[in-house]
């Protein structure tokens, strides 16, 4: 085993293989970044709908709740397949990368909206009443009172989900998106030892994910809101 590794390592860490892995790591990061960024924006939109008032928006509120509950209860791989086959049925030219991004966004929107909602709930009700009696329009309450305080509650769990999305993107390899796991499988198929290949790939995932997880935990400690 060790002899095999010793024999393969020089052949494995060639310029082209390293470039292949680095490009794939970039794709993994890009998938995660797009998924979290778009998911956060859409998640915020869902929270705004859910906290809206008035009977007119009731169907929209119900749809938002339904969306969040459903997409938090379907495995990512199943969402991925549904998106893959649906999009291929209507737009056969769509790239696999696009399909993966859409699938990640659908899921991340649901999870991040719950995190954002908890952040909204963390703002003391009294401040919202003060804003209400001063005739703040809704956008101003959200923009100047809720968001500046909620982000401290939102950020640590949001980072935890970010770490989860990094790992979820591994499943995109199954459709053929050339990200880290796909490259691992490819190199493995080219005859490199799986211990070597997947050991390296896991290390790269770890190197991306672990610092983020640490950051999330330390933010949680330091951003704890001061209460009176």
């Amino acid at each position, binding site marked *: 085993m060790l002899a095999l590794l010793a024999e393969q390592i020089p052949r494995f860490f060639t310029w082209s293989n390293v470039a292949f892995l680095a490009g794939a790591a970039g794709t993994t990061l890009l998938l995660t970044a797009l998924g979290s960024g778009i998911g956060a924006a859409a998640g915020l939109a869902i929270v705004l709908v859910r906290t809206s008032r008035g009977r007119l928006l009731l169907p929209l509120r119900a749809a938002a709740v339904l969306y969040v509950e459903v997409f938090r209860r379907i495995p990512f791989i199943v969402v991925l397949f549904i998106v893959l086959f649906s999009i291929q049925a209507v737009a056969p030219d769509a790239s696999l990368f696009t399909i993966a991004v859409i699938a990640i966004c659908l899921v991340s929107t649901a999870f991040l909206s719950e995190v954002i909602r908890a952040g909204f709930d963390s703002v*003391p009700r*009294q*401040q919202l*009443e*003060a*804003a*209400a*009696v*001063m*005739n*703040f*329009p809704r956008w*101003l309450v959200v923009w*100047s*009172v809720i968001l*500046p*305080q909620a982000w401290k509650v939102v950020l640590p769990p949001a980072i935890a989900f970010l770490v989860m999305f990094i790992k979820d993107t591994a499943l995109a390899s199954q459709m053929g998106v050339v990200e880290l796991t796909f490259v691992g499988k490819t190199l493995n198929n080219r005859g490199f030892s799986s211990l070597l290949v997947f050991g390296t790939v896991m290390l790269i995932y770890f190197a991306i994910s672990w610092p983020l997880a640490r950051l999330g935990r330390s933010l949680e400690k330091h951003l704890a809101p*001061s209460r*009176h």
Partner: protein
Amino acid sequence: MPLLAIEGLSACYGRLKVLQDVSIDVEKGGVVALIGPSGSGKSTLLRALVGLTKPTSGLVRFGDETIRYDSAASLRAARRRMSIVFQQYNLFQNMTVLRNVTVAPVMVQRRARATVEAEARDVLAKVGLAGKHAAYPDQLSGGQQQRVAIARALMLRPDLLLLDEVTAALDPELVGEVLDTIRTLAAGGMTMIVVSHEMGFVREVADTVVMMDGGKVIEAGTPAELFDHPKTERAGAFMAKVRRP
């Protein structure tokens, strides 16, 4: 004609009737003090006036306009003329003192920022907070925070100021500075409804004292009438209790 006329106002929390048929007139430039035991409905009355607790029946007239609490436009108009100061200050924790008091005039009333800030410096100086513009609420004492809250309410140039137990959450040594601020306002002719447990202060600044209990008005009159010659037994018992040190 009174500035504000409350006629037969009632409100419920679920099945609990927290306000029952309350009627009070507030004259322009007058100070009405609401007194009574905890849970008697004093704070609820103020919350109902600004629409934070929805009244179930009764009328509130501001000048010659009746406030319709089920109409957003009518409620907005009413809130333009009334400001409320809460027991817990309810300052925006993410904003400096200056921004706390200027955010509504600039962003809601659309007044020019420069003039609003100049006015804010004046008002903050009047409540004794000239050097605290850049401080955040959690860097201030309770008394200072409450004076910021009063300044914030004044910046809206209300016709009527509602003060909800503004000294109840304060340490005893900080009560005086806030009461002084309110005395100055009363002397300047500000119309106010004040909920307070500070009986000496009530007696000094109020024109009319209204005693409430169980969501109802028990007795109303001048401070001298209510404190020295209460007509009802309930008011008499309450006065005897609060007078005892």
